[in-house]
């Protein structure tokens, strides 16, 4: 039964595999294009774009026959990464407008648009916005709006760009639709032709029990479609925390400049998706598929959340220059850890923060100077280890500008050496330091020392640690902290109080 308050938009991309290839190679949009699979010479066409279909190329056709029909046909081998990235891109684009989606099939998304009229206007405007969002991520979608998913799907199929079936008019809108314009299972299509059923209205008028007796479950499904009825529940899609964009390559790349061009295109598509969903990235994961079958994977924390291609590309390419892949690259995938974009920097009465564009430019130049690993904010880890910190994105425009809990207003700072430096320490009979060689001066006498102060942690884990600390004032005016390992009798300079 049709729910009178239900409104669903169907976003559908025709010939999705071909559209996914066009998304990665926009220059092919006006060219006859076929996606092929299998091994030569037995390759078959699995999908074709509109220009190729006009020239007579059809799915399941052999590659040789397709080329004979359309000599200008461009062929691309079907790549799972390209299709799955495009599928995610379509979902992301729709997710920017409504949080309730159903991922029905590659290139087919149902969007629950109930309540959106207050934000976006009438159904036609919502359909237009969905179509525009899809085109933003490089996928030309048709959008149909109706009370049921089935009716919306038919509307999308018949639409030029957008089509809206008013509430309650589903049966009337579907009745004149010719059955041959839709895809049917072969046995259903043959039966409908044999019975002389020309329109969905004719099909809807047939007795349901009779259809079930003659065609089984396929007949009932066909009848539901003709009536515009949904028989399955809406299965909401939940976006994973990472957003991925990938591209398989038909050729191997073994130089960084050539790889940079591909990574830039992949990042461009990823940032377009993030922008469509009003998100920014605070971390990237790069995964390169190598010709040898191995993978080159890198995870990078961005110094500040951003959605611009250029600074992200700079960070990735500097990292690749420092740690190049060990072999030719045949596939590129970039994942972004997405976080919500802030509506405006700072709040009323707070200091202004650096503009995101300025900050992104500065960060890319800093990365070029010191490397991507050396530019970040810091976050203290969940540990009692004295040097437990991790790199974290800068929250320059965070509105919660209150400092961390602290009961030490005037705290003594510590300058830490990473890693701790081995030093030679003379001790008395009780093991207390008397002189230190190799700290800040060649030899320094100990003026006063305190210790040993023993700490340990994570003894329940593989990252267990324990240390024996000595605070030492030297006659060269420095106050240092020494680490002592009684078992190996070694001394390390941990840092200095300042």
């Amino acid at each position, binding site marked *: 039964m049709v729910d009178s308050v239900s409104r669903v938009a169907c976003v559908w991309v025709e010939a999705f595999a071909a559209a996914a290839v066009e998304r990665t190679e926009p220059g092919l949009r006006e060219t006859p294009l076929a996606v092929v699979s299998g091994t030569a010479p037995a390759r078959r066409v699995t999908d074709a774009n509109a220009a190729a279909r006009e020239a007579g190329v059809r799915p399941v056709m052999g590659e040789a026959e397709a080329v004979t029909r359309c000599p200008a046909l461009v062929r691309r081998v079907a790549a799972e990464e390209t299709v799955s990235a495009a599928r995610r891109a379509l979902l992301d684009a729709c997710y920017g407008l409504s949080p309730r989606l159903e991922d029905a099939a590659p290139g087919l998304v149902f969007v629950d648009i109930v309540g959106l009229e207050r934000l976006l206007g009438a159904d036609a405007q919502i359909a237009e916005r969905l179509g525009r969002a899809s085109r933003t991520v490089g996928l030309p979608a048709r959008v149909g709006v109706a009370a049921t998913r089935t009716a919306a799907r038919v509307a999308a199929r018949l639409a030029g760009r957008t089509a809206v079936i008013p509430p309650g008019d589903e049966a009337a809108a579907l009745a004149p639709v010719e059955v041959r314009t839709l895809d049917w299972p072969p046995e259903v299509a043959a039966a409908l032709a044999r019975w002389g059923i020309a329109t969905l209205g004719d099909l809807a008028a047939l007795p349901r029990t009779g259809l079930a007796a003659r065609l089984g479950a396929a007949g009932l499904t066909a009848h539901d479609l003709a009536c515009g009825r949904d028989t399955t529940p809406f299965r909401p899609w939940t976006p994973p925390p990472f957003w991925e964009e990938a591209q398989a390559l038909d050729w191997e790349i073994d130089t960084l400049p050539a790889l940079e061009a591909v990574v830039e295109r992949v990042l461009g598509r990823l940032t377009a998706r993030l922008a469509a969903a009003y998100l920014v990235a605070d971390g990237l994961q790069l995964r390169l598929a190598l010709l040898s079958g191995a993978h080159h994977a890198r995870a990078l924390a961005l110094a500040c959340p951003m959605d611009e291609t250029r600074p992200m590309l700079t960070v990735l390419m500097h990292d690749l220059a420092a740690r190049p892949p060990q072999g030719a690259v045949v596939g590129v995938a970039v994942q972004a850890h997405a976080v919500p974009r802030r509506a405006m920097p700072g709040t009323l009465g707070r200091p202004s923060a650096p503009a995101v564009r*300025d900050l992104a430019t500065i960060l890319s130049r800093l990365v070029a100077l*010191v490397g991507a690993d050396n530019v970040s904010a810091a976050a203290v880890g969940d540990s009692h280890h*004295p040097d437990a910190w991790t790199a974290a994105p800068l929250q320059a425009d965070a509105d919660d500008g209150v400092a961390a809990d*602290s009961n030490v207003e005037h*705290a003594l700072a510590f300058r830490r*050496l*990473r890693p701790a430096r081995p030093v030679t320490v003379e001790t008395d009979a009780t093991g207390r330091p008397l002189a230190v060689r190799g700290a800040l001066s060649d030899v320094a006498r100990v003026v006063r020392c*305190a210790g*040993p102060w023993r700490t340990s942690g994570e003894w329940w884990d593989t990252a267990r640690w324990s240390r024996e600390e000595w605070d030492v004032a030297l006659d060269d005016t420095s106050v240092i902290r020494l680490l002592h390992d009684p078992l190996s009798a070694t001394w390390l300079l941990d840092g200095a109080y300042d």
Partner: protein
Amino acid sequence: MFSLGDMGSGSWLQRGKITEIVGPLGSGRTSLLVRLLREVTRGGGAAALVDADATFDPVTAARAGVALEHVLWVRCAGRRDVAVAALDLLARCPGFALVALDAGETSARLTLAQAFRLRQAARRADVALVLVGRDRVAGAGAALAVRTRREALAWAGPRRRPTRLVGMGTALHVMRNQGASETAVEHQWWTA
């Protein structure tokens, strides 16, 4: 007049000008820098720290009340020229309330032309520049220069065999205060 009490009200740091904190290791200069970072970040401002030797300790800074997520930490692995170049970049980025250079133990003295160019950049971007090191870095380019000197240490535990350092006293001498004829000495106690 220079006063540590003004630090909390924000008038101690002057945006668009250069402030220098100099002193030997163990004199409390880094503690003073951390205190400045705390004051800036707890008010919601963003700060950047160019750390020439990468010796900044986030754990003690967090204990001192610095909001670490508001501090961009640039680690230069001991390369002075890179640290100065990074400082030059950040000084031109409007929006940071404070940009600091921790020059570490070796001298990073700027030429007069470099110092004045840095001051111009800070003025245009309205950024407070703080330079911390063993010796003066910006010379006459700095509006305020403070020298730190250790006065006392405090220890915990038995008198003859203490177990922990618990505090340090620092005297702050104003060496240069542009626009003011008087000099001042402040005393500060840092708790470990």
